[in-house]
Protein backbone atom coordinates (compact mmCIF):
# COMPACT_ATOMS: atom_id res chain seq x y z
CA UNK A 1 0.00 0.00 0.00
CA UNK A 2 0.99 3.64 -0.48
CA UNK A 3 1.96 4.02 3.14
CA UNK A 4 4.79 1.53 2.71
CA UNK A 5 5.90 3.37 -0.43
CA UNK A 6 6.25 6.45 1.74
CA UNK A 7 8.35 4.81 4.43
CA UNK A 8 10.65 2.58 2.40
CA UNK A 9 13.53 0.72 4.02
CA UNK A 10 16.07 3.20 2.64
CA UNK A 11 14.18 6.11 4.21
CA UNK A 12 13.90 4.38 7.56
CA UNK A 13 17.61 3.54 7.42
CA UNK A 14 18.63 7.15 6.72
CA UNK A 15 16.19 8.40 9.36
CA UNK A 16 17.57 6.05 11.99
CA UNK A 17 21.23 6.51 11.06
CA UNK A 18 21.44 9.90 9.39
CA UNK A 19 24.73 10.53 7.54
CA UNK A 20 26.53 13.82 8.09
CA UNK A 21 24.30 14.77 11.03
CA UNK A 22 26.30 16.57 13.70
CA UNK A 23 25.82 18.99 16.52
CA UNK A 24 26.09 22.41 14.87
CA UNK A 25 25.52 24.58 17.94
CA UNK A 26 28.18 26.99 16.64
CA UNK A 27 25.73 28.14 13.96
CA UNK A 28 23.41 30.89 15.15
CA UNK A 29 19.72 30.19 15.66
CA UNK A 30 18.98 32.95 13.13
CA UNK A 31 20.26 30.68 10.38
CA UNK A 32 17.87 27.87 11.17
CA UNK A 33 15.41 26.92 8.45
CA UNK A 34 11.95 26.16 9.72
CA UNK A 35 8.97 24.48 8.18
CA UNK A 36 6.26 26.94 9.25
CA UNK A 37 3.52 24.32 9.11
CA UNK A 38 5.06 21.97 11.65
CA UNK A 39 7.94 23.67 13.45
CA UNK A 40 10.59 21.28 12.13
CA UNK A 41 13.95 22.96 11.79
CA UNK A 42 17.31 22.35 10.15
CA UNK A 43 20.68 24.09 9.91
CA UNK A 44 23.55 23.34 7.58
CA UNK A 45 27.32 23.77 7.51
CA UNK A 46 28.89 23.67 4.04
CA UNK A 47 32.64 23.16 3.53
CA UNK A 48 34.20 23.86 0.12
CA UNK A 49 37.32 22.58 -1.62
CA UNK A 50 39.77 25.18 -2.92
CA UNK A 51 38.31 24.80 -6.43
CA UNK A 52 34.89 25.78 -5.13
CA UNK A 53 33.34 22.30 -5.16
CA UNK A 54 31.42 21.07 -2.16
CA UNK A 55 33.63 19.09 0.17
CA UNK A 56 31.10 18.23 2.82
CA UNK A 57 27.64 19.27 3.97
CA UNK A 58 26.68 18.64 7.58
CA UNK A 59 23.23 19.14 9.07
CA UNK A 60 21.60 19.44 12.47
CA UNK A 61 18.01 19.81 13.49
CA UNK A 62 14.79 18.23 14.51
CA UNK A 63 12.69 16.59 11.85
CA UNK A 64 10.46 13.71 10.87
CA UNK A 65 11.68 10.59 9.09
CA UNK A 66 11.00 12.16 5.69
CA UNK A 67 12.91 15.40 6.29
CA UNK A 68 15.77 13.71 8.17
CA UNK A 69 16.29 11.04 5.50
CA UNK A 70 16.01 13.64 2.74
CA UNK A 71 18.72 15.73 4.46
CA UNK A 72 20.93 12.69 4.98
CA UNK A 73 20.67 11.56 1.35
CA UNK A 74 21.14 15.11 0.10
CA UNK A 75 24.41 15.55 1.98
CA UNK A 76 25.70 12.37 0.34
CA UNK A 77 24.74 13.15 -3.23
CA UNK A 78 26.07 16.72 -3.37
CA UNK A 79 29.54 15.82 -2.15
CA UNK A 80 32.26 16.76 -4.71
CA UNK A 81 29.84 18.59 -7.01
CA UNK A 82 30.16 22.22 -8.10
CA UNK A 83 27.91 24.91 -6.73
CA UNK A 84 26.19 25.38 -10.11
CA UNK A 85 25.54 21.66 -10.44
CA UNK A 86 24.07 21.48 -6.95
CA UNK A 87 21.83 24.51 -7.48
CA UNK A 88 20.49 22.84 -10.61
CA UNK A 89 19.84 19.62 -8.68
CA UNK A 90 18.02 21.52 -5.95
CA UNK A 91 15.76 23.14 -8.53
CA UNK A 92 14.97 19.79 -10.17
CA UNK A 93 14.44 17.99 -6.87
CA UNK A 94 11.93 20.56 -5.67
CA UNK A 95 10.03 20.47 -8.97
CA UNK A 96 9.97 16.65 -8.99
CA UNK A 97 8.66 16.55 -5.43
CA UNK A 98 5.95 19.07 -6.27
CA UNK A 99 5.06 16.91 -9.27
CA UNK A 100 5.56 19.94 -11.52
CA UNK A 101 7.88 18.27 -14.03
CA UNK A 102 7.74 14.89 -15.72
CA UNK A 103 10.97 13.46 -14.42
CA UNK A 104 12.03 10.84 -11.95
CA UNK A 105 14.69 10.36 -9.31
CA UNK A 106 15.95 7.21 -11.02
CA UNK A 107 19.51 8.47 -11.36
CA UNK A 108 19.60 10.02 -7.90
CA UNK A 109 20.83 7.00 -5.91
CA UNK A 110 19.02 6.40 -2.60
CA UNK A 111 16.90 9.50 -3.19
CA UNK A 112 14.62 7.50 -5.48
CA UNK A 113 13.05 6.23 -2.26
CA UNK A 114 11.53 9.68 -1.79
CA UNK A 115 9.35 9.37 -4.88
CA UNK A 116 6.60 7.94 -2.64
CA UNK A 117 6.30 11.38 -1.04
CA UNK A 118 4.85 12.83 -4.25
CA UNK A 119 1.54 11.10 -3.47
CA UNK A 120 1.39 12.92 -0.13
CA UNK A 121 1.29 16.64 -0.97
CA UNK A 122 1.28 17.62 2.72
CA UNK A 123 4.62 15.89 3.21
CA UNK A 124 6.41 17.43 0.22
CA UNK A 125 7.53 20.32 2.43
CA UNK A 126 9.19 17.83 4.78
CA UNK A 127 11.22 16.36 1.93
CA UNK A 128 12.20 19.70 0.44
CA UNK A 129 13.06 21.57 3.68
CA UNK A 130 16.78 20.56 3.65
CA UNK A 131 17.05 21.41 -0.04
CA UNK A 132 15.68 24.92 0.51
CA UNK A 133 18.18 25.30 3.34
CA UNK A 134 21.06 24.23 1.09
CA UNK A 135 19.93 26.60 -1.65
CA UNK A 136 20.05 29.49 0.82
CA UNK A 137 23.46 28.39 2.06
CA UNK A 138 24.83 28.44 -1.49
CA UNK A 139 23.23 31.64 -2.75
Amino acid at each position, binding site marked *: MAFDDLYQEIILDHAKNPRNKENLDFISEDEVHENPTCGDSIKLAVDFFDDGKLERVRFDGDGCA*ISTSSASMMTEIVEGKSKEEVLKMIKSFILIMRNEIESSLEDWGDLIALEGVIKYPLRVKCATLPWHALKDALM
Partner: protein
Amino acid sequence: MVREWIFANGKSVGEIREEFPILQNKLNLSGNNSPVDLVYLDTAATAQKPFQVIEAGDRYYREQNSNVHRALHTLGEEATAVYENSRQKVASFINAENSHEIVFTRNTTESINLLASSLGSIFGPGDEVLLTEMEHHSNLVPWQLLSQRTGCKLKFIPINSDGELELDEIDNLLTEKTALVGVVHISNIFGTINNIKHIIDKAHSFDVPVLIDGAQSTPHMAIDVQELDCDFFAFSSHKLYGPMGMGVLYGKEKYLDKMPPYMGGGDMIRSVKLTGSTWNDLPWKFEAGTPNVGGAAGLGAALDYISKLGFEYISDYENMLSEYAGSLLSENNKIKLYGPVGHRAGVFSFTHKDIHPHDMAQFLDSFGIAVRAGHHCAQPAMRKLKVSSMTRASLSFYNTRSEIEFLAEKIIAAGEYFNNGIR
Protein backbone atom coordinates in the same frame (compact mmCIF):
# COMPACT_ATOMS: atom_id res chain seq x y z
CA MET B 1 -20.17 -3.86 30.95
CA VAL B 2 -19.78 -0.19 30.17
CA ARG B 3 -23.01 1.66 30.60
CA GLU B 4 -24.54 3.31 27.58
CA TRP B 5 -24.33 7.08 27.67
CA ILE B 6 -27.51 8.97 27.01
CA PHE B 7 -27.41 12.73 26.49
CA ALA B 8 -29.98 15.27 27.67
CA ASN B 9 -31.91 14.92 24.42
CA GLY B 10 -32.39 11.21 25.14
CA LYS B 11 -30.00 10.12 22.40
CA SER B 12 -27.15 7.63 22.60
CA VAL B 13 -23.71 8.23 21.10
CA GLY B 14 -24.65 5.89 18.25
CA GLU B 15 -27.77 7.92 17.49
CA ILE B 16 -25.81 11.17 17.69
CA ARG B 17 -23.21 9.84 15.25
CA GLU B 18 -25.96 9.17 12.73
CA GLU B 19 -26.75 12.89 12.72
CA PHE B 20 -23.25 13.70 11.38
CA PRO B 21 -23.19 12.91 7.64
CA ILE B 22 -19.39 12.91 7.39
CA LEU B 23 -19.12 10.19 10.02
CA GLN B 24 -21.18 7.92 7.76
CA ASN B 25 -18.69 8.23 4.89
CA LYS B 26 -15.88 5.84 4.14
CA LEU B 27 -12.42 7.28 3.57
CA ASN B 28 -10.52 6.42 0.41
CA LEU B 29 -6.90 6.26 1.46
CA SER B 30 -4.44 6.62 -1.37
CA GLY B 31 -3.19 3.23 -2.58
CA ASN B 32 -5.66 1.36 -0.42
CA ASN B 33 -8.41 -0.54 -2.22
CA SER B 34 -10.87 -0.96 0.61
CA PRO B 35 -12.18 2.30 2.06
CA VAL B 36 -11.92 2.66 5.84
CA ASP B 37 -14.06 4.21 8.55
CA LEU B 38 -13.15 7.74 9.57
CA VAL B 39 -11.97 8.03 13.16
CA TYR B 40 -12.12 11.80 13.59
CA LEU B 41 -9.98 12.93 16.51
CA ASP B 42 -9.25 16.47 15.34
CA THR B 43 -12.32 18.28 16.66
CA ALA B 44 -10.20 20.92 18.40
CA ALA B 45 -9.06 22.03 14.92
CA THR B 46 -12.60 22.06 13.61
CA ALA B 47 -15.71 20.13 14.63
CA GLN B 48 -17.82 18.06 12.24
CA LYS B 49 -21.33 19.37 11.56
CA PRO B 50 -24.67 17.71 12.32
CA PHE B 51 -27.24 17.67 9.51
CA GLN B 52 -29.31 20.25 11.40
CA VAL B 53 -26.53 22.80 10.90
CA ILE B 54 -25.95 21.87 7.27
CA GLU B 55 -29.68 22.10 6.56
CA ALA B 56 -30.08 25.47 8.27
CA GLY B 57 -27.45 26.96 5.94
CA ASP B 58 -28.99 25.18 2.96
CA ARG B 59 -32.50 26.35 3.82
CA TYR B 60 -31.30 29.91 4.15
CA TYR B 61 -29.91 29.95 0.62
CA ARG B 62 -32.89 28.06 -0.84
CA GLU B 63 -35.69 29.96 0.86
CA GLN B 64 -34.56 33.05 2.73
CA ASN B 65 -31.57 34.59 0.95
CA SER B 66 -31.66 38.37 0.75
CA ASN B 67 -29.53 41.20 2.08
CA VAL B 68 -30.04 42.24 5.68
CA HIS B 69 -30.94 45.49 7.41
CA ARG B 70 -31.88 47.39 4.26
CA ALA B 71 -34.38 45.64 1.98
CA LEU B 72 -37.99 46.48 2.75
CA HIS B 73 -39.34 43.39 0.99
CA THR B 74 -40.50 40.20 2.69
CA LEU B 75 -37.33 38.20 2.06
CA GLY B 76 -35.22 41.07 3.35
CA GLU B 77 -37.20 41.01 6.55
CA GLU B 78 -36.82 37.26 6.82
CA ALA B 79 -33.04 37.31 6.26
CA THR B 80 -32.69 40.07 8.85
CA ALA B 81 -34.73 37.99 11.28
CA VAL B 82 -32.53 34.92 10.69
CA TYR B 83 -29.40 36.97 11.30
CA GLU B 84 -30.65 38.80 14.37
CA ASN B 85 -32.25 35.66 15.87
CA SER B 86 -28.85 34.01 15.76
CA ARG B 87 -27.43 36.96 17.64
CA GLN B 88 -30.10 36.45 20.32
CA LYS B 89 -29.20 32.76 20.50
CA VAL B 90 -25.52 33.59 20.94
CA ALA B 91 -26.40 36.10 23.67
CA SER B 92 -28.34 33.51 25.63
CA PHE B 93 -25.74 30.80 24.93
CA ILE B 94 -23.09 32.78 26.82
CA ASN B 95 -25.65 34.60 28.99
CA ALA B 96 -24.77 38.11 27.80
CA GLU B 97 -26.91 40.84 29.32
CA ASN B 98 -27.73 42.40 25.93
CA SER B 99 -27.73 40.98 22.41
CA HIS B 100 -26.14 44.21 21.14
CA GLU B 101 -23.01 43.17 23.03
CA ILE B 102 -22.60 40.34 20.49
CA VAL B 103 -20.52 41.33 17.45
CA PHE B 104 -20.37 38.87 14.57
CA THR B 105 -16.95 38.33 12.98
CA ARG B 106 -15.37 35.65 10.80
CA ASN B 107 -13.68 33.70 13.60
CA THR B 108 -11.90 34.03 16.94
CA THR B 109 -8.85 35.46 15.19
CA GLU B 110 -10.84 38.27 13.64
CA SER B 111 -12.57 38.96 16.96
CA ILE B 112 -9.20 39.44 18.63
CA ASN B 113 -7.86 41.53 15.76
CA LEU B 114 -10.95 43.73 16.00
CA LEU B 115 -10.30 44.29 19.69
CA ALA B 116 -6.56 44.92 19.23
CA SER B 117 -7.17 47.41 16.41
CA SER B 118 -10.08 49.22 18.01
CA LEU B 119 -9.57 49.20 21.78
CA GLY B 120 -5.81 49.06 21.20
CA SER B 121 -5.79 52.23 19.09
CA ILE B 122 -5.65 54.33 22.26
CA PHE B 123 -2.74 52.35 23.76
CA GLY B 124 0.70 53.97 23.83
CA PRO B 125 4.29 53.30 24.92
CA GLY B 126 3.36 53.54 28.60
CA ASP B 127 0.74 50.79 28.33
CA GLU B 128 1.14 47.06 28.83
CA VAL B 129 -0.87 44.11 27.52
CA LEU B 130 -0.63 41.09 29.80
CA LEU B 131 -0.96 37.75 28.00
CA THR B 132 0.20 34.22 28.85
CA GLU B 133 2.82 31.88 27.42
CA MET B 134 0.00 29.46 26.63
CA GLU B 135 -1.70 31.61 24.00
CA HIS B 136 -2.61 30.40 20.54
CA HIS B 137 -0.94 32.53 17.88
CA SER B 138 -4.32 34.23 17.35
CA ASN B 139 -4.14 35.82 20.80
CA LEU B 140 -0.48 36.73 20.44
CA VAL B 141 0.29 38.03 16.96
CA PRO B 142 -2.49 40.73 16.88
CA TRP B 143 -0.96 42.17 20.07
CA GLN B 144 2.55 42.00 18.61
CA LEU B 145 1.28 44.02 15.64
CA LEU B 146 -0.35 46.48 18.01
CA SER B 147 2.88 46.76 19.96
CA GLN B 148 4.75 47.61 16.75
CA ARG B 149 2.15 50.28 15.89
CA THR B 150 1.71 51.93 19.26
CA GLY B 151 4.80 51.04 21.30
CA CYS B 152 2.76 49.29 24.00
CA LYS B 153 4.61 46.49 25.81
CA LEU B 154 3.64 42.82 25.99
CA LYS B 155 4.08 40.80 29.19
CA PHE B 156 3.41 37.14 29.78
CA ILE B 157 2.18 34.98 32.63
CA PRO B 158 4.55 31.97 32.48
CA ILE B 159 3.56 28.30 32.19
CA ASN B 160 5.09 25.34 34.03
CA SER B 161 6.10 21.96 32.63
CA ASP B 162 2.62 20.51 33.26
CA GLY B 163 1.17 23.11 30.93
CA GLU B 164 -0.42 25.15 33.72
CA LEU B 165 -0.22 28.89 34.32
CA GLU B 166 1.94 30.10 37.18
CA LEU B 167 -0.80 32.25 38.60
CA ASP B 168 1.27 33.55 41.52
CA GLU B 169 3.24 35.57 39.00
CA ILE B 170 0.20 37.68 38.19
CA ASP B 171 0.79 39.86 41.26
CA ASN B 172 4.18 40.91 39.88
CA LEU B 173 3.00 41.35 36.31
CA LEU B 174 -0.22 43.27 36.82
CA THR B 175 0.47 46.95 37.41
CA GLU B 176 -1.14 50.35 36.91
CA LYS B 177 0.43 50.28 33.44
CA THR B 178 -1.61 47.23 32.41
CA ALA B 179 -4.21 48.26 29.84
CA LEU B 180 -5.64 44.82 29.02
CA VAL B 181 -5.29 41.20 30.10
CA GLY B 182 -5.83 38.49 27.46
CA VAL B 183 -6.03 34.82 28.48
CA VAL B 184 -6.95 31.59 26.76
CA HIS B 185 -9.75 29.78 28.61
CA ILE B 186 -8.74 26.23 27.63
CA SER B 187 -5.34 25.47 26.11
CA ASN B 188 -5.55 23.94 22.64
CA ILE B 189 -2.45 21.83 23.34
CA PHE B 190 -2.73 20.76 26.95
CA GLY B 191 -6.45 20.92 27.55
CA THR B 192 -5.70 22.94 30.69
CA ILE B 193 -8.75 24.80 31.99
CA ASN B 194 -7.38 28.08 33.27
CA ASN B 195 -8.71 29.68 36.43
CA ILE B 196 -9.91 32.72 34.54
CA LYS B 197 -12.20 33.85 37.34
CA HIS B 198 -9.14 34.42 39.51
CA ILE B 199 -7.39 36.35 36.73
CA ILE B 200 -10.47 38.47 36.01
CA ASP B 201 -10.90 39.38 39.69
CA LYS B 202 -7.21 40.32 40.00
CA ALA B 203 -7.34 42.45 36.83
CA HIS B 204 -10.53 44.20 37.93
CA SER B 205 -8.85 45.21 41.18
CA PHE B 206 -6.67 47.39 38.89
CA ASP B 207 -9.68 48.38 36.73
CA VAL B 208 -8.14 46.48 33.82
CA PRO B 209 -10.47 44.86 31.25
CA VAL B 210 -9.99 41.16 30.44
CA LEU B 211 -10.34 39.32 27.13
CA ILE B 212 -11.01 35.58 27.25
CA ASP B 213 -10.16 33.46 24.20
CA GLY B 214 -12.98 30.94 24.33
CA ALA B 215 -12.26 29.11 21.07
CA GLN B 216 -11.56 25.82 22.87
CA SER B 217 -13.85 26.26 25.89
CA THR B 218 -17.18 27.00 24.21
CA PRO B 219 -17.47 23.46 22.73
CA HIS B 220 -16.87 21.79 26.10
CA MET B 221 -18.47 23.81 28.87
CA ALA B 222 -21.29 26.23 29.59
CA ILE B 223 -20.19 29.86 29.53
CA ASP B 224 -21.74 32.64 31.58
CA VAL B 225 -20.01 35.92 30.75
CA GLN B 226 -21.92 37.78 33.45
CA GLU B 227 -20.88 35.37 36.16
CA LEU B 228 -17.28 35.36 34.91
CA ASP B 229 -17.54 39.14 34.63
CA CYS B 230 -15.07 39.09 31.71
CA ASP B 231 -15.08 42.23 29.57
CA PHE B 232 -14.52 40.53 26.22
CA PHE B 233 -15.03 36.94 25.11
CA ALA B 234 -14.09 35.62 21.66
CA PHE B 235 -15.00 32.33 19.99
CA SER B 236 -15.56 30.59 16.66
CA SER B 237 -18.61 28.90 15.19
CA HIS B 238 -16.70 26.14 13.40
CA LYS B 239 -15.23 24.66 16.57
CA LEU B 240 -18.72 24.69 18.03
CA TYR B 241 -20.26 22.38 15.38
CA GLY B 242 -21.37 25.41 13.34
CA PRO B 243 -20.23 26.57 9.91
CA MET B 244 -16.82 28.04 9.13
CA GLY B 245 -16.56 31.77 8.54
CA MET B 246 -18.54 32.86 11.60
CA GLY B 247 -17.09 34.15 14.83
CA VAL B 248 -18.19 36.14 17.83
CA LEU B 249 -16.77 38.94 19.91
CA TYR B 250 -18.71 39.60 23.08
CA GLY B 251 -17.89 42.91 24.72
CA LYS B 252 -19.39 44.81 27.60
CA GLU B 253 -21.46 47.72 26.31
CA LYS B 254 -19.42 50.23 28.31
CA TYR B 255 -16.31 49.33 26.30
CA LEU B 256 -17.87 48.66 22.89
CA ASP B 257 -19.65 52.01 23.07
CA LYS B 258 -16.40 53.94 23.37
CA MET B 259 -14.38 51.87 20.92
CA PRO B 260 -13.89 53.25 17.38
CA PRO B 261 -15.05 51.17 14.39
CA TYR B 262 -12.77 48.40 13.11
CA MET B 263 -13.61 48.39 9.41
CA GLY B 264 -15.50 50.98 7.44
CA GLY B 265 -18.22 50.41 4.85
CA GLY B 266 -21.90 49.71 4.50
CA ASP B 267 -24.13 48.78 7.43
CA MET B 268 -21.76 50.24 10.04
CA ILE B 269 -22.74 53.87 9.40
CA ARG B 270 -25.62 56.10 10.40
CA SER B 271 -25.02 58.91 7.98
CA VAL B 272 -22.28 59.39 5.41
CA LYS B 273 -21.03 62.67 3.97
CA LEU B 274 -18.04 63.05 1.71
CA THR B 275 -16.02 64.54 4.51
CA GLY B 276 -17.05 62.24 7.32
CA SER B 277 -19.62 59.87 8.76
CA THR B 278 -21.39 58.95 11.95
CA TRP B 279 -21.55 55.41 13.25
CA ASN B 280 -24.40 52.99 13.57
CA ASP B 281 -25.52 51.67 16.97
CA LEU B 282 -23.99 48.61 18.61
CA PRO B 283 -23.27 45.99 17.41
CA TRP B 284 -23.58 47.06 13.76
CA LYS B 285 -20.89 49.72 14.23
CA PHE B 286 -18.45 46.80 14.10
CA GLU B 287 -20.06 44.88 11.24
CA ALA B 288 -19.13 46.62 8.00
CA GLY B 289 -20.41 45.17 4.74
CA THR B 290 -22.80 42.33 3.95
CA PRO B 291 -22.48 39.76 6.72
CA ASN B 292 -22.44 35.94 6.59
CA VAL B 293 -26.16 35.38 7.10
CA GLY B 294 -26.05 31.74 5.99
CA GLY B 295 -23.28 31.22 8.53
CA ALA B 296 -25.37 32.88 11.22
CA ALA B 297 -28.28 30.55 10.39
CA GLY B 298 -25.94 27.55 10.79
CA LEU B 299 -24.44 28.89 14.02
CA GLY B 300 -27.93 29.35 15.48
CA ALA B 301 -28.77 25.73 14.60
CA ALA B 302 -25.47 24.55 16.14
CA LEU B 303 -26.21 26.34 19.42
CA ASP B 304 -29.69 24.78 19.51
CA TYR B 305 -28.13 21.38 18.86
CA ILE B 306 -25.51 21.63 21.62
CA SER B 307 -27.97 23.05 24.11
CA LYS B 308 -30.20 20.02 23.59
CA LEU B 309 -27.31 17.66 24.29
CA GLY B 310 -26.60 19.51 27.56
CA PHE B 311 -23.16 20.63 28.66
CA GLU B 312 -23.19 18.58 31.86
CA TYR B 313 -23.57 15.49 29.68
CA ILE B 314 -21.04 16.64 27.10
CA SER B 315 -18.29 17.38 29.66
CA ASP B 316 -18.89 14.15 31.59
CA TYR B 317 -18.71 12.07 28.47
CA GLU B 318 -15.67 13.81 26.99
CA ASN B 319 -13.82 13.64 30.32
CA MET B 320 -14.55 9.93 30.49
CA LEU B 321 -13.08 9.44 27.00
CA SER B 322 -10.04 11.56 27.80
CA GLU B 323 -9.33 9.67 31.03
CA TYR B 324 -9.83 6.38 29.23
CA ALA B 325 -7.28 7.38 26.58
CA GLY B 326 -4.87 8.42 29.32
CA SER B 327 -5.31 5.11 31.13
CA LEU B 328 -4.59 3.12 27.96
CA LEU B 329 -1.41 5.05 27.17
CA SER B 330 0.10 6.28 30.43
CA GLU B 331 1.59 2.84 31.22
CA ASN B 332 3.61 2.85 28.01
CA ASN B 333 7.11 4.15 28.80
CA LYS B 334 7.67 5.26 25.18
CA ILE B 335 4.78 7.70 25.34
CA LYS B 336 4.77 11.02 27.10
CA LEU B 337 1.42 12.69 27.69
CA TYR B 338 1.21 16.46 28.15
CA GLY B 339 -1.16 18.60 30.15
CA PRO B 340 -2.55 18.33 33.66
CA VAL B 341 -3.44 14.70 34.44
CA GLY B 342 -7.14 14.23 35.10
CA HIS B 343 -7.91 17.83 34.19
CA ARG B 344 -7.57 17.87 30.44
CA ALA B 345 -10.60 19.15 28.61
CA GLY B 346 -11.20 17.32 25.37
CA VAL B 347 -7.61 17.14 24.14
CA PHE B 348 -4.61 15.04 24.87
CA SER B 349 -1.25 15.68 23.31
CA PHE B 350 1.57 13.19 23.32
CA THR B 351 4.99 12.38 21.94
CA HIS B 352 6.46 8.93 21.25
CA LYS B 353 10.09 8.49 22.25
CA ASP B 354 11.07 6.90 18.92
CA ILE B 355 8.68 8.44 16.42
CA HIS B 356 8.40 11.99 15.18
CA PRO B 357 4.83 13.35 15.51
CA HIS B 358 4.53 13.73 11.73
CA ASP B 359 5.38 10.12 11.15
CA MET B 360 3.00 9.12 13.93
CA ALA B 361 0.14 11.14 12.41
CA GLN B 362 0.87 9.70 8.97
CA PHE B 363 0.85 6.17 10.38
CA LEU B 364 -2.48 6.78 12.15
CA ASP B 365 -3.93 8.32 8.99
CA SER B 366 -3.23 5.08 7.15
CA PHE B 367 -5.92 3.55 9.39
CA GLY B 368 -8.37 6.42 8.90
CA ILE B 369 -7.49 8.07 12.23
CA ALA B 370 -7.37 11.87 11.90
CA VAL B 371 -5.16 13.57 14.51
CA ARG B 372 -3.12 16.75 14.43
CA ALA B 373 0.68 16.88 14.49
CA GLY B 374 2.83 19.96 14.69
CA HIS B 375 3.24 23.01 16.85
CA HIS B 376 -0.53 23.62 17.15
CA CYS B 377 -0.20 27.33 16.50
CA ALA B 378 1.31 27.78 19.94
CA GLN B 379 5.05 27.83 19.29
CA PRO B 380 6.05 29.83 22.40
CA ALA B 381 4.44 27.24 24.69
CA MET B 382 6.09 24.41 22.77
CA ARG B 383 9.51 26.09 22.99
CA LYS B 384 9.07 26.53 26.72
CA LEU B 385 8.51 22.78 27.04
CA LYS B 386 11.45 22.16 24.67
CA VAL B 387 9.39 20.17 22.17
CA SER B 388 9.20 21.20 18.53
CA SER B 389 6.04 19.27 17.84
CA MET B 390 3.47 16.92 19.36
CA THR B 391 0.67 14.71 18.19
CA ARG B 392 -2.75 15.78 19.45
CA ALA B 393 -5.95 13.80 19.58
CA SER B 394 -8.99 15.90 20.42
CA LEU B 395 -12.35 14.58 21.47
CA SER B 396 -16.01 15.21 20.96
CA PHE B 397 -19.29 13.73 22.15
CA TYR B 398 -19.44 11.88 18.82
CA ASN B 399 -16.33 9.86 19.58
CA THR B 400 -16.63 6.38 21.09
CA ARG B 401 -14.67 4.23 23.52
CA SER B 402 -13.89 1.81 20.72
CA GLU B 403 -12.37 4.64 18.67
CA ILE B 404 -10.13 5.44 21.66
CA GLU B 405 -9.12 1.77 21.92
CA PHE B 406 -8.35 1.73 18.18
CA LEU B 407 -6.23 4.86 18.55
CA ALA B 408 -4.25 3.46 21.49
CA GLU B 409 -3.72 0.16 19.67
CA LYS B 410 -2.38 1.92 16.57
CA ILE B 411 -0.14 4.29 18.55
CA ILE B 412 1.50 1.23 20.04
CA ALA B 413 1.62 -0.50 16.64
CA ALA B 414 3.42 2.53 15.21
CA GLY B 415 6.33 1.78 17.55
CA GLU B 416 6.64 -1.68 16.02
CA TYR B 417 6.21 -0.48 12.45
CA PHE B 418 9.03 1.98 12.70
CA ASN B 419 11.22 -0.84 13.97
CA ASN B 420 11.53 0.39 17.52
CA GLY B 421 13.19 3.65 16.80
CA ILE B 422 13.52 6.08 13.95
CA ARG B 423 15.09 8.93 15.85
